[in-house]
């Protein structure tokens, strides 16, 4: 029980610290937690904001789904075939250190300022961790399981789908979780850089217009989105891979 309650207590604790700090600093540009919370309904209720949010979520969903659809098979193939791995590895190693959201201006130059460029960036941001984890997961599948499959008459494709995929699923889902967090971050960042629509846009508009309550309200909302999505995904992941050993998500969180 303590486990469930503790994060909620932590949230409340952090909000409390915020409240006290803002009261102590007494700075116009640093509203208190309560003021920010009070501004939330206004933000959510505003039709313009909802359109922006909708756009954000739409881009994120498309980018994320397409990324999964491409990356998981690719990663699995790379994990089981040396040729495929050797072909794609160098390319991925080069793309990895590049900040994907930083590609925004260049992509915008090519594809314009619309949805496509932002969705593409999200796609790129999500793909890499998912490919990597799918690759690692597929690589770790025991040969002997595949031999048994071959002995049972499964073709190479069937073995990939019916043995490698389920066996690598825990690792793949870890990659998806990282990808989800990155999708959210890339989405917000790309919207902050290419301000045109979306949650990042709302944030900076409010900043420019001095609506500090809104700024902080948006931070809470985005923060809640992040935490909520992550928690939902964890539930889904736990259910899908009940049979697996507990995994430790290194960069993300205590699992």
């Amino acid at each position, binding site marked *: 029980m303590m486990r469930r309650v503790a*994060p909620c207590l932590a949230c409340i604790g952090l909000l409390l610290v915020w409240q006290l700090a803002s009261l102590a600093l007494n700075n116009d540009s640093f509203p208190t937690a309560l003021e920010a919370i009070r501004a939330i309904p206004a933000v959510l209720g505003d039709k313009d904001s909802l359109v922006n949010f909708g756009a954000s979520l739409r881009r994120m969903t498309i980018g994320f789904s397409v990324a999964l659809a491409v990356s998981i098979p690719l990663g699995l193939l790379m994990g089981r075939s040396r040729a495929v791995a050797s072909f794609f590895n160098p390319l991925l190693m080069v793309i990895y*250190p590049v900040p994907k*959201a930083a590609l925004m201006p260049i992509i915008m130059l090519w594809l314009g300022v619309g949805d496509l460029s932002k969705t593409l960036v999200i796609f790129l941001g999500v793909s890499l961790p998912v490919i990597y984890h799918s690759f690692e997961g597929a690589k770790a599948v025991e040969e002997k399981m595949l031999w048994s499959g071959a002995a049972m008459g499964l073709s190479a494709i069937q073995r990939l789908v019916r043995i490698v995929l389920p066996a690598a699923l825990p690792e793949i889902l870890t990659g998806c979780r990282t990808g989800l967090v990155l999708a959210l971050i890339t989405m917000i960042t790309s919207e902050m850089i290419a301000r045109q629509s979306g949650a990042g846009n709302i944030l900076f508009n409010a900043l420019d217009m001095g609506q500090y309550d809104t700024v902080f309200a948006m931070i809470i909302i985005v923060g809640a989105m992040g935490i909520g999505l992550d928690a939902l995904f964890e539930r889904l992941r736990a259910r899908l891979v009940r049979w697996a050993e507990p995994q430790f998500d290194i960069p993300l969180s205590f699992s």
Partner: protein
Amino acid sequence: MNARTIISDLLLGLIPIVLLVAVWQALVSFGYAPVTLLPPPGHVFQRMVALLLNTTYQRDIAATLFRLFAGFAIAVILGVSVGLAAAVNPTINAAVRPIVRVLAPLPKVALYPALLLLVGFGHESKILLVTFDALFPILLSTYYGASTVEQKLIWSAMAAGTPPREVLFKVVLPAAAPSILTGCRIGLVISCIVVFLAEMITSTDGLGHVLVTAARTFQAVDMFVPLITISLLGLILNGLLELLRSYLLRGFPEV
């Protein structure tokens, strides 16, 4: 890891870069991309050399590096201390765990506007953002490494006469070093990415700022240069960290 493996690894790592440049040149030469959108590699490298000799650009690089190092350093100090403390002390653990659980999935970049309001538009806001983003992988890796130290190592040290308060520094810290350094590597990559993005969003100097300025004036060549610069910086820093890592972990079996 001896000199030979390092050199061969370096050469191997150069191949994808060479490949990418070759593909790039091909795209331009065969007319698949207009010069205004995708300038030939030759132009870009020429411009890059010119800019590297330019003092303004050098100052931008210095600004970016300064923020990167400062943010990363704070993240390492904070992350390792808190991670170690949480691993050995149950009270600290109980306090830290839920806070990290809540804050980790939060897109830290959403806090950027708040930081701008609180500490201004200069170095501090970017340094703080880098710290927030790099902190969690380092903290979690440290915690993981420290809490999975083999019990018998600690017992052996205590039987040899190590007082309990020294066990943390004499056994837990060195035993957790592989994990800590892995976390630092992730933290470093994140630092490179975040500092660049923060400078793109709002800044008056730095590599990210250079890119955004070039984007506004549709100077394609000038957009590629800072991007490549930060990637190169990231690769070099990563390489240096790897060297440090090989030296510090020379006794540990390869994972």
